[in-house]
């Protein structure tokens, strides 16, 4: 089976936001990624699946600049970003969330979002006494923060401390902070892990909504394929550092190679 997007898929996905070309990453003798090429079209929700150790997180680490690949390229919006520093990649619009939420625990929900606004001179502590140095940026940030809270359905919790939030709300807060920081491509590491099915569906509904309303592209790592597959446009399956299947979720989930990879056949 050719692991390429069909022509029809390519046609509807002419605008590729992120592409990896033959990424090879080794840790000593272990080959974590053995030439992985994926394409993520703009405004798509793309699912990345694979059993433990298949290389999902390594691929994300290469994309976000935390790891440098031995071979291959990462192309983002037409630019080669292979080996660029992580915080620069963040500012370019690729933002990842953590598998275990990392909120600013003593700050309120609103403060968490405001603190995620892109860094700039408004955060200079030596000028902080002069309100004029930051008030304009801050007004924009507050407007944006409340818009995002509304989109996440968290507007009523705006003044709550992060320490008082539920697990699902913390996941949404992570998404909110990523939006606040100007994400165009969000990489979510197990957004539904440790959340009950109802809440998991809510989280994925929010992801769909953000794609429709804000044009955000998503790359999602998720083990709860049953839930995730209902919401995504396209799926890549990794096994032992190789792409073993790709296509619409139902096609990939019924792929014999994918099933075998999970049950170790």
């Amino acid at each position, binding site marked *: 089976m050719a692991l390429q997007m069909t022509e029809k898929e390519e046609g509807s996905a002419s605008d590729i936001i992120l592409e990896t070309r033959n990424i090879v990453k080794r840790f000593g003798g272990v080959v974590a990624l053995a030439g992985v090429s994926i394409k993520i079209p703009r405004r798509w929700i793309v699912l990345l699946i694979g059993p433990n150790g298949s290389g999902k997180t390594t691929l994300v680490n290469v994309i976000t600049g935390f790891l440098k690949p031995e071979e291959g390229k990462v192309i983002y919006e037409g630019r080669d970003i292979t080996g660029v520093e992580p915080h620069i990649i963040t500012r370019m619009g690729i*933002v990842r969330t953590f598998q275990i939420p990392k909120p600013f625990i003593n700050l309120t929900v609103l403060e968490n979002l405001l603190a995620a606004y892109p860094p700039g001179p408004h955060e200079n502590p030596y000028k*902080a006494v002069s309100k004029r140095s930051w008030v304009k940026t801050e007004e924009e940030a507050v407007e944006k923060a409340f818009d995002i809270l509304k989109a996440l359905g968290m507007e009523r919790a705006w003044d709550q401390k992060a320490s008082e939030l539920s697990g699902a709300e913390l996941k949404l807060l992570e998404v909110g902070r990523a939006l606040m920081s100007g994400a165009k491509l969000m990489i979510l590491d197990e957004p539904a892990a440790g959340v009950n099915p109802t809440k998991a569906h809510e989280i994925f509904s929010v992801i769909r909504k953000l794609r429709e309303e804000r044009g955000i592209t998503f790359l999602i790592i998720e083990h709860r394929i049953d839930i995730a597959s209902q919401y995504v446009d396209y799926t890549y399956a990794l096994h032992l550092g190789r792409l073993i299947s790709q296509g619409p979720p139902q096609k990939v989930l019924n792929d014999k190679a994918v099933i075998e990879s999970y049950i170790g056949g």
Partner: protein
Amino acid sequence: MMANFAVLAEQILSFIGIYYIVSIGLNLKAGHMGIPDFGHAMFFAMGGIVVGNIVAHIAAAVAAKSVPGVTVAGVIASNTKTLSIMNTKFFPYHPLLDIGLVIFALVLSLILGGILGWIASLPALRLRGEFLAILLLTVAEGLRVIFTYTKSLMGSTPTVGLSTPALFSWTHNSGLAATIFTIIVALIVYVYVERLHNSPAGRLFRAARDDEDAAKALGKNVVTIRRDAMIIGSALAGLAGAVYALNPFLGGGSVAAVSIFNRVWWTFWPWALIILGGMASNRGTGLATIIVGVSLIWPVRLYSFKVAQVLHASALGINPDQFANALEYAFIGLIILIVQAVLPRGIIPEYPSRTLPFEKYARGKVLPPKPKEE
């Protein structure tokens, strides 16, 4: 009787003022930024040295032209004599120069405290937790020893130190003037730290403290954030040191390495105060300082030596001075224990950074608009 009461009130107010300034500097580092600075006293000491050494030299250079017996070299060589001549025959008659020197002392102590804070931030960027706390504590102690025995810095007698210039003597009531001055500086510092807290920069300190990795993932430069908190917090400690040396109720007319580098007074007490008030709470630290200043610090300082006598510390072969100091340590520990048990987040727990009237935005955006009157 009235006069005594007035003096006691001035002394207590001076204590509250000085402890607020020195504690709030630590609160910025330890409370807002999470840097466990156990060397806070060394930044405080910079202010004491500015007044006792640098300002005294400048004043002597001016006074040497008109006042017999005053020489620049005499500030160190015959410190007590030179300063006593200047304090009686020079400073009371040159109010403008005195005011200028006070302002100069405040500015220079801020700068020196800030520079030392910047140097101390270099390890603070690489170390965390108890490793950093111990490092800063030992650096402060090391500096204390060096300063104690460096004649050109602290004079020839380590425990006596340097007499300080009486820059409020022109008011004819140095105590009252210095008290008012101390309180005014403390109030300005309060307004400053509140404005910093309620700004995006203040919020960023607290965010980076809560989760460094998340801050980094959002593109924030945690290194410069920690550095800036060290510089500003230490500069405030330097300012406190200068105010201390200028106030006769606090410094007692002199600065010595044993007093300005005193880790109990300028590191451990500020820690106790910010824990009592609430970490990262500027208002809580203020309230804690007032409560402790009125009810504890003063009586403890006043009576711990007597308690040591009553308990016959000397009969047990213990030096009453040391015993009195040990009592003070015990009080600090007791306060921290009680607060941790009863109010683990302090008297006034940390509050959000209110940069803008958020409720107004919330009403427009997310809360239902107020129902119209029919």
